[in-house]
């Protein structure tokens, strides 16, 4: 996935000279995960900037750059660090179009790795997407595989609105996948059916999609046909894809890494109950992080959604 992300940025920078990359360690070092590897060498110091260590500064200056004609791609080194830039994201970037009644837009992309299971220190693994889906004006994109990552990132870069592009750290080098060499786009707001099924719908995004797909494949052998939907994008949301699947299966599980209470899964569950309650045969099940701060490495595997919890959830749904 990391190569797909790198290629998307490189190809877009070749296409559009207004695109610049800025963030901590994104220059010489090519990013702590090598997402921006080689960009400084290819595009030079006028396009790729190692910034001072200041998250609010990175986002705040990106806003000024964007309103004056540039297309910044900013990196927040780990999503847990984004709290220091919350005002600039949620109260500034998100609102500029609204505040100026349409005179200014803020076409910035904020890339950030997130997600657990990789034994990081505190505040490196938190899944914080719900903070941003609750901030009108932002778009939130969360890819789960290399192909989607490239197409979605190119769409995000070409978008006229501020986009948070959240990259599951655990999937950066988890598996290889054929990715088209030429640039391509995947529209923001289109979910993908990862696996079709008739008995249960599993809705997920980002880091937990491969896990859900793996469990669904295993359940197939036990005679359970689970459909897996990868939302890919939380804002805008592909509600039609969700409702279509719910109406088919009548049983819904939502899987995400973020803490359960107030997580985006709650929003998905609420939308389903508003629009397809009578298609449901069982109460909706949510498998999510527990309502605690993201824990330490020694216990994180038991904190994160895992196969055992998903299987248990499916069994619960099928009991009805």
């Amino acid at each position, binding site marked *: 996935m990391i190569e797909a992300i790198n290629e998307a940025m490189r190809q877009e920078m070749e296409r559009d000279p207004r695109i610049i990359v800025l963030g901590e360690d994104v220059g010489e070092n090519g990013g702590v995960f090598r997402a921006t590897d080689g960009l400084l060498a290819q595009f030079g110091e*006028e396009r790729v900037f190692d910034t001072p260590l200041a998250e609010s500064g990175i986002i705040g*200056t990106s*806003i000024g750059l964007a309103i*004056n004609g540039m297309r910044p791609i900013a990196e927040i080194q780990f999503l847990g660090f984004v709290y220091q830039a919350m005002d600039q994201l949620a109260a500034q970037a998100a609102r*500029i179009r609204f505040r*100026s009644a349409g005179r200014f837009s803020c076409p910035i992309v904020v890339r950030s790795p997130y997600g657990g299971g990789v034994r990081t220190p505190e505040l490196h693994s938190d899944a914080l997407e719900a903070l941003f889906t609750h901030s009108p004006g932002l778009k939130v994109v969360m890819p789960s595989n290399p192909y989607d990552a490239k197409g979605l990132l190119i769409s995000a870069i070409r978008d006229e609105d501020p986009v948070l592009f959240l990259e599951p750290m655990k999937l950066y080098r988890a598996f290889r996948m054929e990715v088209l060499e030429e640039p391509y786009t995947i529209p923001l707001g289109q979910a993908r059916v990862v696996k079709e099924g008739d008995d249960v719908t599993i809705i997920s995004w980002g880091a937990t999609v491969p896990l859900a797909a793996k469990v669904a494949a295993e359940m197939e052998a036990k005679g359970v046909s689970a459909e897996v939907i990868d939302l890919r994008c939380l804002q*805008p*949301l592909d509600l039609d894809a969700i409702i279509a699947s719910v109406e088919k299966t009548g049983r819904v599980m939502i899987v995400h890494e973020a803490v359960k209470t107030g997580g985006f899964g709650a929003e998905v569950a609420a939308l389903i109950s508003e629009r397809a309650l009578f298609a449901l045969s069982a109460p909706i099940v949510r498998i999510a992080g527990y309502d605690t701060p993201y824990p330490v490495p020694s216990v994180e595997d038991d904190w994160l959604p895992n196969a055992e919890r998903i299987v248990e959830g499916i069994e619960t749904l099928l009991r009805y």
Partner: protein
Amino acid sequence: MFDPDQLSVEIVQILDENGNGDERQLAAFSDEWLLRAYREMRRARVIDERLLRMQRQGRIGTYAPFSGQEAAQIGSALALHKDDWIFPSYREVAVCLMHGMPLEQFFHYVQGRLSGKRMPDEVNIFPTQIIIAAQTLHAVGCAWASKLKGEPHVSVAYFGDGATSEGDFHEAMNFAAVYNVPVIFFCQNNQYAISVPYRKQTASRTIAQKALAYGMKGVLVDGNDVLAVYETMKQAVEAARRGEGPMLIEALTYRLGPHTTADDPTKYRRPEEVETWRTKDPLHRLRVLLERRGLWTEAQEDAFVAQVNDEVTAAYEAAIASKSGSIVDVFDYVYSEAPKLLAEQKDEVMRRKQRSGVR
């Protein structure tokens, strides 16, 4: 070792509070320029006083008056080109008027209209910032873009003494100096952040000296002396345009009125202090100079004030007469294109509007 007590920051002043100054320095300003600066300051004062009264009459919403700060605002704005960018806080009304904001536009803002912060497309002013110091970073980014594009424009961040305590101010100063971008940090030190006085805000003897820590030039100027403010700003802007990087200007001034119309300053300021600052009024000293030179009379003053009052009335009436937005419009400026769920909410609102229209 570095001892802040040994640091000496001198204040730049050309015209003192009695309208006196060094004749050679004064000679650099034409009669025409002095008259223009005075008229702009007087216009700003009349507008400010009218807005305050209109708020008391319930004709406009919350308002943050700037009386006392006219020299800092007009003097700095006079040194800018039309293409330069301004990033204002909520107290920079005089700056914005000087830089091309139509007065009618400001009435849209204080009447709480959706279009209130939309400047005309050709006016390079960013929407008024409410979050203290957030705009300093936007100014740096904007200046950075000018530099990358090879354009000769300067960006100016306007903020107050309280803003210098915010993290964004420090991040902005640091980024500006590291990337050597054409930005001016223009601080109006009016000595109060709502009720909190300067000495509780910072242990620095001056705000100007904070520039040192970032490897940037800083200057302290008498913010009630429009000549000194203009001259200082002009030098800073010219240096930035030449590629010499950012500068921090501290304009020492005083807010004669309340923080906003929702505030009672007698709770935290002694009347004697306010009276002392009234004697340093930025308009008074320039008027003394103009009258001494025979450039301005009582009759001219009265006629000019009446003319500005008419202008205010006309702008207010034009704003009132123009079409106000409705709840339907709030959905249009969230995204470039409304996502489906947002569009549904707009439809719902429109249906309700239509129904109530039928009734």
